[in-house]
């Protein structure tokens, strides 16, 4: 093979363009190359597909929304940090102003936060902002070097320009670097450039820095304070105490610290879900199970918004790629409109199970039309798709209303977040779930004021959405009436505190004989307790709300053509986003038939090891029978027996060279795969590195 060699491990394959055309690749230059289209525009198969632009468009809008959301969420924090640093760095105090930003343990998201911090600080306070990570600052010298380089030469853009000045140089030059990395150099540079803005140093991952490096830096910075004003920002992932633990008192006393906390990433996610993903603006709808998987990864693994979004993007890409043109849907221009009836019929009818079910519901001529008449099919598809799209918006509104009603209940039978409701409601009739019934029984214990508040909030939600969704007006009207009734009761109740009815009854009972009284009491107990006015209205209100939910929360998953809109391929998402390499490896070794699909290895379970297995599988099966030490000789003998099984077993055949070679190779494979390793405990033994014995 071309990529195997005993002497090197790296093989470079260059495209033809690079021969002699080097200069043109210098990015900022105008060159014929610049006209070259990017790969995406060129169209490499998939990007030519009709769905691709739509995918890009949906993705862009999603990214924009996320960006806005981020800006909103961090605005307050950035403002606080910037105000603090601006205030303290201008005053003449001896300490170095230090902002400790608690970033949370979702490390992958930190880059975004600090980018925003840097931008804000450059805009507000000083152009000299240096972002440092522990990766580049193993010693104090490196740290000073980084600061000098950033300050003197700026960012990469400047470097490229400077490289362009020396035009005739054939090869790109490395960036010029500061050679003397000391604080006095920094102070010299500061003097030369002649501004009085402070130098702000941001340590993005404070925990990973060597404390002594930070100590030295702080010590020197405070010594040079009169010459170079320095301000610090520490990014701390855990708690503020880390700073106190890492730095001794004599250093701490030189800092004027203030702590700022970023928003909890869990809150950010729920905000993101409510505002972006579960809003009608997002044109990609994700199925309940997959969505649950993504949030579970977030909650139980990394708390990272960024990786959540990447996984969401993966789902989106797969959905568009699978559904092709049908995934492209906007209310205004249904793509289906542009397609010929024949294409629609060809691609929808046989593929979608939900459509087939829909057809089955019809009888007679209608059914025949749905199966054969292409024009009719197209019309129906367009109608259904419109219905589905409309319904989904109603569904989301209904979900929010239901969330209002359930979020404050004790023990949260339906979860705390809107997303919890979404997981279930999108594919099931939520009003049939026991959790919903429990909620419904809890609602009956709501006090008047609580109920009133909730109805008010529901009304707010409905009214907010009613501009676009006309169907909501009906519900608004009904709920307003009930709400008004409720209010009237409360105002009325204050005047009449006790109902006269009861008094009458008590009077009736007083003048009766015992038997009559008994009779009377029996009758009373049979008749249901009389409901007061409030209870009546409450029941009316709850019934109304329940009815509304049943209408709005009809599960989209049960509607025809839902496949076109919902991405619900949990298996794919699980397999490709989480991966399970160990399972795959063990499966292939244990039962090679699963992958090979050959006749010879089929159904050999009960017989254990088949001669036809690949060598490494035979070795694997044999090694499962051993404990933690394996005698190679015994292993080889067992192997030999399996391999030579078909030969007559009259004589104990000595191990042939071929068998030994095969065995050796399979052992090497096993060692490479990490199942065994050599040990010096005993001659010719290996150590088994896995455990368990799954063969029977």
């Amino acid at each position: 093979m071309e990529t195997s060699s005993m002497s090197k491990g790296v093989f470079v394959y260059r495209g033809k363009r690079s021969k002699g055309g080097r200069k043109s690749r210098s990015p900022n230059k105008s060159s014929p190359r610049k006209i070259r289209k990017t790969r995406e525009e060129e169209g490499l198969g998939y990007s030519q597909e009709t769905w691709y632009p739509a995918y890009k468009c949906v993705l862009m809008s999603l990214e924009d929304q996320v960006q806005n959301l981020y800006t909103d969420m961090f605005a307050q924090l950035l403002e606080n940090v910037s105000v603090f640093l601006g205030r303290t760095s201008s005053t003449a105090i001896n300490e170095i102003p230090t902002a400790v930003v608690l970033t949370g343990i979702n490390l992958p998201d930190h880059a975004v936060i600090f980018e925003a911090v840097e931008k804000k600080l450059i805009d507000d306070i000083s152009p000299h902002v240096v972002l440092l990570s522990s990766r580049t600052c193993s010693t104090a010298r490196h740290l000073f070097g980084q600061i000098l380089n950033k300050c003197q030469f700026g960012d990469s853009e400047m470097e490229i320009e400077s490289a362009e000045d020396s035009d005739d140089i054939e090869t790109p030059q490395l960036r010029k670097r500061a050679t003397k990395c000391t604080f006095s150099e920094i102070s010299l540079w500061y003097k030369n450039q002649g501004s009085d803005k402070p130098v702000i140093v941001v340590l993005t991952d404070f925990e990973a820095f060597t404390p002594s490096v930070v100590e030295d830096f702080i010590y020197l910075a405070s010594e040079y304070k009169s010459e170079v004003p320095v301000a610090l920002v520490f990014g701390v992932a855990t708690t503020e105490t880390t700073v106190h633990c890492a730095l001794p008192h004599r250093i701490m006393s030189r800092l004027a610290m203030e702590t700022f906390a970023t928003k909890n990433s869990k809150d950010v996610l729920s905000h993101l879900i409510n505002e972006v993903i579960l809003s009608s603006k997002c044109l990609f709808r994700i199925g309940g199970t997959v969505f649950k998987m993504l949030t579970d990864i977030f909650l139980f693994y990394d708390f990272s918004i960024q990786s959540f979004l990447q996984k969401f993007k993966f789902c989106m890409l797969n959905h568009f790629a699978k559904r092709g043109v049908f995934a492209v849907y906007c209310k205004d221009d249904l793509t289906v409109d542009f397609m010929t009836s024949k294409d629609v019929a060809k691609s929808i009818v046989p593929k979608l199970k939900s459509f087939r079910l829909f057809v089955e519901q019809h009888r007679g001529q209608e059914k025949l039309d749905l199966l054969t008449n292409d024009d009719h099919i197209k019309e129906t598809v367009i109608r259904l798709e419109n219905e589905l799209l409309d319904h989904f918006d109603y569904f989301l509104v209904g979900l929010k209303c239901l969330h209002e009603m359930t979020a404050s209940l004790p023990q949260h039978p339906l979860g705390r977040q809107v997303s919890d409701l979404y997981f279930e409601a999108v594919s099931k009739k939520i009003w049939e779930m026991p959790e919903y019934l429990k909620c419904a029984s809890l609602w009956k214990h709501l006090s008047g004021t609580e109920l009133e508040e909730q109805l008010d909030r529901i009304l707010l939600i409905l009214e907010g959405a009613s501009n676009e969704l006309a169907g909501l007006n009906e519900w608004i009207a009904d709920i307003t009436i009930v709400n008004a009734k409720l209010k009237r009761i409360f105002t009325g109740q204050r005047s009449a505190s006790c109902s006269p009815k009861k008094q009458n009854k008590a009077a009736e009972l007083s003048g009766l004989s015992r038997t009559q009284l008994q009779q009377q009491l029996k009758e009373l107990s049979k008749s249901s307790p009389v409901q007061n006015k409030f209870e009546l209205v409450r029941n009316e209100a709850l019934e109304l709300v329940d009815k509304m939910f049943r209408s709005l929360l009809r599960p989209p998953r049960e509607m025809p053509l839902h496949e076109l809109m919902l991405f619900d391929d949990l298996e794919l998402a699980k397999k490709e986003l989480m991966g399970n390499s160990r399972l795959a490896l063990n499966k292939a070794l244990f039962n090679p038939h699963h992958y090979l699909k050959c006749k010879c290895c089929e159904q050999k379970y009960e017989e254990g090891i088949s001669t036809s297995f690949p060598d490494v599988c035979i070795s694997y099966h044999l090694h499962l029978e051993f404990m933690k030490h394996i005698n190679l000789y015994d292993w080889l003998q067992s192997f030999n027996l399996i391999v030579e099984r078909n030969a007559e077993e009259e004589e104990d055949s000595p191990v042939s060279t071929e068998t030994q070679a095969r065995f050796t190779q399979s052992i090497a494979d096993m060692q490479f795969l990490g199942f065994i390793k050599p040990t010096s405990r005993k001659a010719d033994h290996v150590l088994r590195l896995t455990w368990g014995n799954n063969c029977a």
Partner: protein
Amino acid sequence: MTKEGEVKSDDCEDYVKVKVICGEDVEKHLFIKGSKEKVYAGSSTKRRTGFSTASDHFEPLDEFGENKNRAPLTPKALFAEDSLNKSRDKADEVRRGRRKSVAPAGGLQPIPEAKEITLSKKRAASDNGCDTPERKRRRNNSVEEEPPKTPSNRTMRNVDMKTPESAKQTPGSKRRVLDTPRLLRTNVKKCIGEMLCESDSDAISEESESESEEEVFNDVRDSVETPPKKEEAKIKIKKQTKSFSAEDYFDAHVSSKVITSNHSLRKLEKPRLDQDTINDALQKMPKKHEKECKIIFKNLESKFRRWQCLLLEGFSLLLYGLGSKASLLNSFRKLVSSDEDDAIVINGFFPTLTLRDIFSAIIRDTLDYAVVPGDENECCNIILRHFNHSDSHHLYLLINNIDGQALQSSKAQNAIARISMAKKLHLVASIDHINAPLLLDQCLLAKLNLVWQDSTTMLPYYEETAFENSVMVQQSGKMVLSSLHSVFQSLTTNAKKILNILMENQLNAQEANYPGMSFRDLYQEAREQFVVSSNLALRAQLTEFLDHKLVKMKKGFDGSEMLHLPLPPAILKEFKSTHNFDSL
């Protein structure tokens, strides 16, 4: 009592003749050589289930080897008992929904015709005792630790020690040597199966047994693959015994010593083959499943378009599964490296690969820089800057074995993850090691943005293992010898002489466990030859040897420093013969 693990060649010729009486007139002779456990296999079903039945009383017999010569009598009685028990057991098991039965148990089923089965043959004197280690351990345990066999005791042991596999094997002192337990069972079953064909009275039960076994396996897979379904209780019980569980870990790492046989590879004609012989032999052999592997490969190739799409959308691919993925990556490389775009293939299994090699390949060979900066961060920055630029070309970085020895350090992993974030740099990596996913923490995962792809190719790892110092491959020492030569060339005369003294001493030593030459002796010797004048001068010379790993130093028994060359005598001799030391 036969001691396990020790060879008793005179015992090896015995056959156990068993008469099976099933029904009135039917007699059956089974010649089962040397392994009463097969006879007892029927009772082992009970042991696994944890019942104590009548047959348990006979178990001490099979555990104490001296009964074996009386075998024709005892097992016969046992058999009669056993066949009764068996039917009872079966009923029990069926009732409990644990229908699984053991293959050799077929031998106990009533068979109308008498037949002689010679299951196995003469046992060579040399190769007895191929007992799997766990079986031995268990046997020892059962003999030493628990003489009184009460039902509760039995149950306890089953819970603690027995894996389902081994439970089928009743401890027997005499096993046919080369047999693996399953193979043996298979053989017995085969024979029985043949007989059954003649008298298809029991064919049905046999069938149902195999079915139940199959079911069990499905369960095993289910239990690993998918969250356990709510099924009947019987399956749950089986799962506990079959799938990997945390308990297995403690079973495997019990503090008691693991006993293995004392055999070593020296018993073979050629204890270890060298790499060339292996390659030759494997070349000559017909390849198994060539056609199927090709189909798998084709299927994987058909996914390339999707892979490329994912890569261009900013994801990285991680290929996992059994089989060498080098050819797959190479084939993918052919697709993606076009006129415009570059591709770099990196073999992570290459032992001397460094991160710097990768950087220099990217920076010097594809970006045409004259100098590669020494600082890794600087390298990353350059790469990121270039490949984030919208006008840059695409670079496909294909890494065979990102879990390879050379790339395992967190520094390397972080650097690769960092450059993979560039928009126009696309990473495809493969992993093979069973524990490779442990390398990836959440930061790496977020940077890499992985999409996992099951790409099992089932191809053998020829290339990947060529470098690995496998336990079974003979170290030819060619590499060591050549490095020794090159270092030797650069030594001063005095240093050469010192090395010579050490070498002679080592070659002359007769002891099998050569401890090395003590520093004092060496000094003495060197002084006599006027090579060094002081202790310090010798030390200075030795430091050079130690740095080049020509010489190794150990502390001796008396605390003195012992020096030796870490090379086998044959190589030393060869080395000595090529250089004329006398002329020094």
